[in-house]
């Protein structure tokens, strides 16, 4: 597809957790916990405050007034601040400096005086009912020439355990939010820039790693379409697919709009109660329903069933809207007869409603309240089809498709967090921030300076275990051995069930030293690490899986090898030492110290040579 032609514009919003010692507004560790470790729980209701109500209609107002009961899990690593029972502590300096460092890496300009805001969030993920967030810096640049608009420092929300239960361990972990302008024009460019942003963040060495620690939202529009925000694209590899499929969806919706307009299509503004038509139906769903409502989409026939993304139709979009009212889904005549609804019933429906085959009828079957709500949602979404692409927040589906989530948020409802004093970013402080080496630069350096394979260099540079690698190199361990052990062996034994979190950096380095000094064979590394993971000391592990050979045994082995190669030895004299060393070491599988082997071997060679 020619994305330039369709006018693809995309931007990225990245949320990255920072790996600080303490949380943003309290002195708790930024530690994720297992929910079964929770020390207690409490529950709360959140209420939209009165000002929220002014501008919106009664139904929505009613909805927002509805109190929702949320349960929160506490831990011995959370405190009264997470509980919304204590004013926030002053802004975490470590997090501030780190976010400013990131801003500086992107060439951004810091805000002179940082003002902390409260952004209302009443989905339960913030115990206070708001998220604290501050604009830290503006106007950075991307390698593609695009612009980074803003960098905000925020507190992470609580993690949903299930239903309305939240876990407080994550709440308050510092988070930077980086928002680019819609400066990307192809799916590949989006992927590339997302990757770049992530790389820069990881270059600080102070961001959280692992699932859920970085989240990408992508904004997408095409000419004639509308801005769509796709939330929570966690895997970088799917970014391009998401963009592609969204562009496709917008194209198809525009095509459908054009068709509808040319047909003079319209939407009947209210649903009809057709419960009576289905008293004898074979459809179990309709039979069970308290009420069946029909929405008439005049001139829509065929388009509701039109595929707009692989496997998704305009009808699916309507269904997504309807589901917000708690119904399981909808039926529409583009897909009928089916699901136990007969052609006769469809015909009777048309007859009763005075519609024809050119029209599409959508059926909603549920309780009266739900059905009415769902029918109105269908009418709403059908109306949007006449305008083309509605602005929406959408969630990603597994294959890169997206589904309706909620309308685009209006202006964020923010007001100052008065419990946190504003922070001046003094020029001297800004100037004193030193920039970390980019991981890409580091990878290049590894490959040139340490002479390791380029791919391996990049892999280790981008690895979470980079600090361990750098320590190994500092301690003069062979860089390739270190990198391969870190990237390969550790993963391998983990796959086999070893708990590699039990292998401390000290132990890991000791094992590599043992190999390098010949106290253990390279081949023994997986077994040694496995034993260390089970709690063994390094020496103990070597003792057990590669037990030292006694001097007598070693002597016997060497004698045998030398005797077997007597001719060669006699020929080469001392020059036979190095080749035979290899043979002996292979035999003792690293269970003997190289020095001793060499000493004994030298003597045996002398013996054989003398015996000539």
């Amino acid at each position, binding site marked *: 597809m020619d994305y330039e032609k369709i006018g693809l514009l995309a931007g990225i919003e990245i949320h990255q957790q920072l790996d600080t010692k303490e949380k943003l507004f309290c002195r708790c560790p930024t530690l994720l916990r297992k929910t079964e470790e929770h020390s207690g729980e*409490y*529950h*709360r*209701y*959140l*209420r*939209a*405050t*009165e*000002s929220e*109500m*002014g*501008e919106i209609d009664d139904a929505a107002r009613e909805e927002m*007034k509805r*109190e929702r*009961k949320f349960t929160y899990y506490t831990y011995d690593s959370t405190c*009264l601040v997470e*509980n*919304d*029972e*204590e*004013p926030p502590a002053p802004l975490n300096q470590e997090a501030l400096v780190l976010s400013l460092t990131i801003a500086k890496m992107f060439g*951004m*300009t810091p*805000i*002179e*005086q*940082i*003002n902390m*805001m*409260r*952004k*209302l969030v*009443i989905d339960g993920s913030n*115990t*206070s*009912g*708001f998220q604290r*967030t*501050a*604009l830290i810096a*503006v*106007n950075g640049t991307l390698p593609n020439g695009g612009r980074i608009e*803003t960098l*905000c420092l925020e507190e992470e929300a609580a993690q949903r355990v299930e239903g309305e239960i939240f876990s407080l361990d994550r709440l308050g972990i510092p988070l930077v939010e980086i928002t680019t302008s819609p400066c990307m024009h192809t799916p590949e460019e989006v992927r590339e820039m997302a990757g770049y942003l992530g790389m820069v963040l990881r270059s600080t060495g102070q961001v959280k790693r692992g699932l859920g620690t970085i989240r990408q939202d992508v904004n997408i529009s095409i000419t004639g379409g509308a801005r769509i925000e796709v939330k929570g694209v966690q895997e970088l590899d799917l970014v391009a697919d998401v963009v592609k499929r969204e562009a496709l969806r917008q194209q198809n919706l525009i095509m459908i709009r054009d068709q509808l307009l040319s047909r003079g299509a319209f939407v009947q503004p209210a649903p009809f109660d057709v419960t009576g038509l289905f008293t004898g139906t074979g459809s179990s769903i309709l039979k069970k329903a308290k009420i069946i409502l029909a929405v008439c989409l005049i001139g829509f026939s065929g388009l509701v069933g039109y595929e707009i993304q692989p496997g998704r139709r305009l009808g699916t979009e309507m269904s997504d809207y309807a589901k917000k009212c708690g119904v399981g889904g909808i039926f529409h005549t583009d897909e009928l007869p089916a699901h136990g609804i007969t052609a006769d019933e469809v015909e009777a429906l048309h007859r009763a409603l005075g519609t024809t085959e050119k029209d599409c009828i959508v059926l909603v079957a549920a309780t009266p309240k739900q059905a009415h709500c769902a029918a109105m949602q269908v009418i709403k979404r059908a109306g949007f089809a006449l305008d083309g692409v509605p602005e929406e927040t959408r969630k990603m589906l597994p294959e890169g498709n997206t589904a309706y989530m909620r309308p685009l948020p209006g*202006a*964020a*409802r*923010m*007001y*100052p967090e008065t419990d946190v004093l*504003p922070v*001046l970013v003094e020029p001297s402080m800004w100037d004193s921030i030193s920039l970390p080496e980019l991981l890409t630069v580091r990878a290049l350096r590894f490959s040139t300076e340490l002479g390791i394979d380029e791919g391996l260099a990049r892999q280790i540079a981008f690895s979470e275990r980079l600090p361990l690698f750098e320590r190994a190199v500092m301690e003069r361990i062979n860089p390739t051995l270190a990198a391969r052990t870190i990237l390969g062996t550790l993963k391998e034994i983990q796959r086999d069930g070893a708990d590699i979190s039990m292998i401390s950096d000290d132990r890991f380095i000791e094992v590599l030293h043992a190999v390098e000094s010949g106290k253990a064979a390279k081949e023994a590394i997986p077994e040694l690490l496995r034993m260390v993971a089970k709690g063994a000391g390094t020496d103990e592990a070597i003792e057990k899986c590669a037990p030292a050979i006694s001097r007598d045994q070693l002597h016997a082995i060497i004698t045998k090898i030398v005797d077997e190669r007597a001719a060669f030895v006699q020929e080469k004299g001392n020059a036979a030492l190095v080749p035979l060393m290899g043979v002996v070491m292979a035999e003792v599988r690293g269970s003997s110290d190289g020095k001793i082997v060499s000493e004994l071997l030298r003597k045996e060679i002398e013996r054989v040579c003398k015996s000539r």
Partner: protein
Amino acid sequence: MERLKTGDRIECSYAGTRFNGTYITSREGKAVIKLDSGYNIGVGSDTCRFMERPDPVGRPEISTTQNDSLPPLSIISTGGTIASRIDYRTGAVTSQFDADDILRAIPGLSGIARYRTTQLYTILSENMTPAIWQELAAAVYKEIKNGATGVIVTHGTDTMSYSSAAVSFMVDTPVPVIFVGSQRSADRPSSDNTMNALCSATAAVSPLGEVAVVMHASTSDDRCAIHRATRVRKMHTSRRDAFQSIGIAPLGYVDYPSLDIHLSPGAVRRGSREPAISPVLDESCRLLYFYPGMPPSALPETGEVHGLVLAGTGLGHVSTDWIPALKTLVDDGTIIMMTSQCLNGRVCDRVYDTGRDLLKIGVIEGADTLPEVALVKMMWVLGNEKDPEKQRLLFSSSIKGECMRRSLHGL
């Protein structure tokens, strides 16, 4: 250039870009502006250019109705806010008080009663004074006489227990007089204001007949406790359940959200007393907290105060050094009452020598009265009773449940 005012639309040139926004204020040398994204930033004021001054935005009018068939409740505000409004355009939070405001903010209230509201004061509760307590008592009494089914007093939490105790001593009430506040400000979705307000209204129409404080019973939004005004104390700086009954169980609970109410057998019932008011307070009373090494010179001078409440150690002790100075004060007419800084438990000066010396010189045992409540009681007793013998009788008996004849088991 025009001097910028809050709410002015401006354009700001910063970091090579132009932002549109709203001027908020000047703070520590920076112009604080609210960007259209909602974020506030502080920048040099020279970066801002005035664009226009919008007409003030009228607040949306949503009328509320009161149900005349429900019992009449009076709400008296002293500064504790039940409701507040955020102006997202400027970020300003303003507290709201008239009945419409409250019912709009907490619609559930309209199902419990109909309301008459009086805004008596708008002050931080640490600025309360005995003179204000007296005006508050008069206002409460007026509402009772006017036929209120119950009275709700909204109050800052800092000194709510002092004020509620003062009103309890000054006013004999046949109806519930409920003090309520919130520990988390009303502008936040998590505020305890809604639940506390609904529970206090429920208590105010209940069969209760005394002055009480109604606040969260735990950190969860599950129920409010009804505390006797003279036995309650703020025991945490910031938790929702900061208010705790000391030495007794709460008078009852209001479950949330069901608003089911449970009163203990010990709670005074509606109609048990005829309405009356004795609003005199003798402000010339002091509360002094003893600590080891505190010099007797820290005591007031002879004649400086009429009454002195000591928060002594343990069963009610102060240093032996203090005895002569205390004796002089007592001999010169100062009334001195001993309470304990332990807060829980009963003063008993018969057990140790220091205590016996204190009794000998005429210091009054405060039984298990809380030190702060003892101070308020002293102001009231000295204000309303001049006969020293009758004063002593009042001090050693319970006027409004402030001291108990039996010490229950709980700590």
